[in-house]
């Protein structure tokens, strides 16, 4: 069964149509990279799937269940949107860590709040909190921040902040983890540590969608690559297909420009 399926997703801002019917799907454990020049709609696609923007029409399926249907007249309630969002994790370009909390607190905040909604929370409060904290610590260790757990975001480098935000997203066990240009806000010498973490997640079969400008990295880590231009998917295939034998002129031009750099 497909873990995620997007059908004909469309989104306009005013008169500008940013997504002109995007469809793709992915299997569990797959790593998909989305490339394309700025303005091609990559970020809007990610934001629409994560319900930060409301798509105008189209359908989103998770494990075969339709969680969004643009043709339905009924608007999603706030509770439904929340429930949908919990299927996914999103790592932002600008990290968006909560500055008043330590690295560890950033990771535990959402799980602790969500745990309060569990029916057995009162009975097993201590055990639940301990489990959440241990899980958060393990995640921070996994991204190489075992010795930084009690630091505040302002005491961490950009790369470390982004690793905390990856741990924060993983703490809720998302079915699909999305990355929105995770290295674009980082100094070049810091991108490596993020890419290493993502590669490690790929080896552990975490299902991921990565919007990126790092073509070499995309080739290395992805099972599939999508090339977007002007709000549509132009190429969808293995890294070798898309990067070495592109079908469309626009893809060729895009890759040529990157190689010129």
């Amino acid at each position, binding site marked *: 069964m497909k873990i995620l399926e997007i059908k004909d997703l469309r989104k306009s801002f005013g008169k500008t149509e940013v997504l002109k019917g995007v469809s793709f799907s992915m299997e569990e454990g797959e790593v998909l990279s989305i490339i394309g020049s700025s303005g091609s709609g990559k970020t809007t696609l990610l934001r629409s799937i*994560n*319900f*930060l923007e409301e798509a105008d029409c189209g359908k989103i399926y998770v494990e075969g269940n339709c969680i969004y249907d643009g043709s339905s007249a009924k608007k999603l309630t*706030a509770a439904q949107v*929340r*429930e949908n*969002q*919990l299927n*996914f*994790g*999103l790592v*932002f370009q*600008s990290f*968006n*860590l*909560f*500055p*008043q909390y330590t690295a560890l607190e950033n990771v535990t*905040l*959402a799980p602790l*709040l*969500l745990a309060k909604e569990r029916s057995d929370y009162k009975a097993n409060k201590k055990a639940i909190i301990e489990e959440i904290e241990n899980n958060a610590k393990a995640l921070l260790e996994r991204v190489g921040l075992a010795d930084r757990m009690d630091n*505040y*975001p*302002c005491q961490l480098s950009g790369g470390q902040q982004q690793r905390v*935000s990856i741990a*924060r*997203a993983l703490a*809720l066990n998302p079915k699909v983890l999305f990355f929105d240009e995770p290295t674009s806000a980082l100094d070049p010498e810091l991108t490596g540590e993020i890419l290493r973490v993502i590669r490690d997640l790929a080896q552990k079969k975490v299902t991921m969608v990565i919007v990126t400008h790092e073509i070499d990295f995309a080739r290395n880590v992805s099972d599939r690559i999508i090339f977007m231009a002007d709000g549509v998917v132009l190429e969808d295939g293995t890294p070798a297909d898309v990067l070495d034998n592109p079908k469309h002129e626009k893809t060729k031009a895009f890759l040529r420009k990157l190689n010129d750099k």
Partner: protein
Amino acid sequence: MSIFITVTLSLLEGLLTTFKIFALTLLMALPLGLIISFGSMSKIKVIKWPIKTLIWVIRGTPLMLQLIVFGFGPGLLGIDGMDTFVAVMIAFVLNYACYFSEIFRGGIEGIPKGQYEAGAVLGLKKSQIFFKIILMQVVKRIIPPMSNEFLTLVKDTSLANTIMIYEITWNAKRFMNSEHILWPLFYSGVFYLAFCGILTLIFGYIEKKLDYYKG
């Protein structure tokens, strides 16, 4: 008993009233200000525009005039028996809530959108996002403008004497008529100064406390 001690005791008695107005105003105007700030940011026009108008009227007229309206207005309308102190509190709370609301609004609107979005993708409710993520950051940002308002409030309490509330300035002025001496008024300044000095220290302490993070 020397006149100095008489004056000091009288001013201390007035200070108590001054402090009462100060504390009660904060206690009620801070939460009301937060509610008004939500109203002024509302997307619903029938909420937003009346609130905006209220803020305009309250900030656009002198507090002294508002005191007179609430102090004498009910009597003019034939409503008797409204306590003068209640009138003072209504005027102060409403006035300060409107000023606070604009400070809150500035603080809330200054928080980057990404903070809300990060909370949303983590599946948090709107109320959780506000109270667990946004509010602390707003508090840190609004400490400097808030300390200004707190200090202004200390001194604005003196306006209450326009509708016969016996706060510190009233008590000082009384000696001008009864004893024909002016110095109790100057002396009253020392009390305001001490009050504001303590507040400044408290605000400095809070600012330091919140210094552990940036943003």
